[in-house]
């Protein structure tokens, strides 16, 4: 559902900067929108996290995926069933950077004989890893545009990433990987009936949007060269808060930039918040110290209970006849 709608939205988003450059709105596209989008991005994320954080975590509900800590002669799993802050951090690192839980994925197939087979299925994990890590490295590479001298970490990533370049043609491996990752994520969403059935317009929209960013970037780098010096001048002027818009950077750059702005502004209000969400997810970020340390529920309130006195009041006679001790001697 919503594939067409999402595509249409992307076309519109591409048209805006395209027409904007025609109309001479480079300043709006190159300065106003980026500032606006970045502000929305930062404030939006903070707002959402604060919003989540305002609700308490009344109960300690980690999903335990390993042996608990009990006897010292039974080996506990300190990460998948953590009891220490360090264990929780390790668990979160595994989740955040390596998508541990997604790596557990398998596929159920019921054979003709009626047996359930659990089939190896790490493709989703692999595509997710490819996409997220490539996207991350690409973002790091872009930092060179914002500083006069390229920081060593950025050049390091560039060199690693550009390892496969040949001759005078530079080529970044991540440009390819990000597209492969995205393509797989999109195709599986369209092809796997279960996923397609539940997918919303928003799910396609972000995929198309990020694909739009990737394609416009790739176009700019390898085919329709934009004026890199101009881009860098603009970028540095933006971070210095003295925006200058060089002339004739090229429409393709403004399309790329506008889509990035759209992504930044959309981010806080969408499912893209899954990253920060994972950080705050109580089933993952809590230690299973449940019986060791009391967890406090800030809104714990007294409830109506059935007391022993009421119980004995009702059953005292039969209890006495059965020889059970009573609190009230009558």
């Amino acid at each position: 559902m919503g594939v067409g709608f999402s595509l249409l939205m992307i076309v519109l988003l591409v048209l805006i900067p395209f027409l904007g450059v025609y109309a001479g709105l480079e300043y709006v596209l190159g300065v106003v929108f980026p500032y606006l989008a970045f502000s929305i991005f930062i404030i939006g994320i903070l707002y959402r996290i604060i919003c989540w954080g305002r609700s308490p975590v009344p109960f300690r509900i980690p999903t335990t995926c390993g042996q608990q800590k009990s006897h010292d002669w039974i080996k506990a799993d300190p990460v998948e069933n953590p009891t220490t802050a360090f264990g929780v951090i390790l668990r979160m690192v595994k989740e955040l950077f390596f998508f541990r839980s997604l790596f557990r994925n398998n596929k159920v197939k019921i054979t003709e004989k009626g047996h359930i087979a659990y089939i190896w299925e790490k493709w989703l994990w692999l595509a997710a890893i490819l996409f997220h890590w490539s996207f991350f490295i690409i973002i790091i590479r872009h930092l060179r545009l914002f500083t006069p001298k390229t920081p060593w970490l950025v050049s390091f990533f560039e060199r690693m990433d550009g390892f496969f370049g040949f001759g005078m043609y530079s080529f970044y491996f991540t440009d390819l990987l990000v597209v492969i990752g995205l393509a797989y994520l999109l195709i599986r969403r369209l092809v796997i009936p279960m996923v397609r059935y539940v997918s919303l317009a928003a799910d396609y929209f972000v995929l198309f949007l990020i694909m739009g960013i990737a394609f416009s970037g790739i176009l700019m780098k390898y085919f329709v060269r934009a004026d890199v010096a101009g881009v860098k001048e603009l970028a540095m002027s933006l971070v210095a808060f003295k925006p200058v818009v060089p002339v004739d950077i090229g429409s393709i750059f403004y399309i790329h930039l506008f889509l990035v702005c759209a992504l930044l502004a959309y981010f806080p209000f969408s499912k893209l918040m899954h990253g920060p969400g994972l950080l705050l997810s109580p089933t993952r970020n809590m230690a299973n110290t449940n019986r060791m340390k009391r967890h406090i529920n800030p809104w714990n309130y007294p409830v109506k209970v059935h007391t022993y006195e009421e119980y004995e009041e009702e059953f005292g006679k039969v209890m006495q006849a059965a020889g059970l001790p009573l609190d009230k001697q009558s």
Partner: protein
Amino acid sequence: MSSLPKADSLVSKKFKMPKKNWFNAPFEFKKGTYNYGSNPKHHVALDLPNPRNWSPEDQDWQLPENWKEILLEGLRERLDKYRSLKIFMDVCVRCGACADKCHFFIGSGDPKNMPFLRAELLRSIYRREYTKAGKIMGKLAGARDLTEEVVKEWFYYFFQCTECRRCSVFCPFGIDTAEITIIARELLGLLGVNTDWTLASVSNCFRVGNHVGIPPHAIVDTIDMLCDDIEDITGVRVNPTFNRKGAEVLFIAPSGDFFADPGIYTFMGYLMLFHEIGLDYTLSTYASEGGNFGLFVSHEMMKRLNAKMYAEAKRLGVKWILGGECGHMWRVVNQYMDTMNGPADFLEVPVSPITGTRFENTKSTKMVHITEFTSDLIKHNKLKLDPRRNDQYKVTFHDSCNPARAMGIFEEPRYIIKNVCRNFYEMPENTIREKTFCCGSGSGLNNDEFLEMRMRGGFPRANAVKYVQEKHGVNMLSCICALDRAALPPLMDYWVPGVEVCGVHELLGNALVMKDEGDRVRETNLRGEPLEEVGGEQDV
């Protein structure tokens, strides 16, 4: 099971999705797949809203006039109270990793049983009411209006989730459908929409002390009969005490263990063990239920029932509490009890009087799981065991959902099993430990009217048992959950005939060589089945 299709034709082998999108997809209350509506007398007994006679098949559910307001206000309140709910409403990316992890989806093929769609049933309303995108864009943003049809759909599907948390193991963000189901059921409860089975159990438990409503004198009688059976089999008279003040330990087991076959054999195992080690313990008729069906109604109801454990421990002046083999009981004890009804500052940190082991992992809650207790005894060589007495069994072990995914008790029961029987085989890796499959009847769905869905939901578990039956000749499915002991036997009869179900402490009771038995030779196991090749010698 007459209306139930034959096992070989129940489950379809392909997952097919309907053409129409799910937003307004119709569904019907088909016999065997839904729970009966709650009886008004239980509403009255428990001070729950909207008591009336109703059935899910009725056109008019007689909801309160301002039901929409109540429900939305309830949702808003819970969003403010539970960070989990807020995050789980917002962060799902619909990647579908959870889809075929749900036993109900595997067994029914119904798309609304895929965890991410089950959650969308609630999320779509959340988006409509509480997000800008949902308000403006409606359906395109995955939002839909709250109608009575939605309430009915929630009732149908949130009572087709056993809160087993398997999907949350696979979710890259840890989204826990159990949390969503618990809260959705709470919301339905605000309108007086509950299931009869659950409320009947809760109202029994609240007033009488246990789910089945066994009054105190009958508990004494029932357990006395189990003691007679033990005497017949072993020649040893065990004498449990009830409501005794000053005992060192309060022992609380799920009531299923003393009133129904095959749980009773597990209970006999407990009693024999305690007698053998001379544990100073008492049972309680007031807190005669370890289980807590309140968990399947609301957080509040869970607290109301659970309060009895600490209250009784305090009244009797015991030092600590020992808990029997039960699944959701241990979810409540491990994740909620101390927070809800603690602090247990009137108790002491549990120490095994036999081995001197201090159970540091329970130093705040002060309640020990019986497999923790018994594995410690075995490790310290405090028990004389003859595992040959279980030789007629080829055993496998079913990790019950809650001890697995809400505690992480994996090795303790396995250690006991490996010491009390000689034929133990694990089921396939994807179906045990944290990836274990539910029995299909958890979270208050173990009633007769729901039988077809229970057989569907239990299919993946049964299928794994079938695998070890075919491969190793397994004939005994052991577990540490009373609901399992009630639910798995019909499941086995349906899918894997020839496999029986037992608790871990039944196996222990069989193997336990009691001092007071003297030279007497046991002729039968706890089920009264003759012991064959063991013969006369019982030396280990």
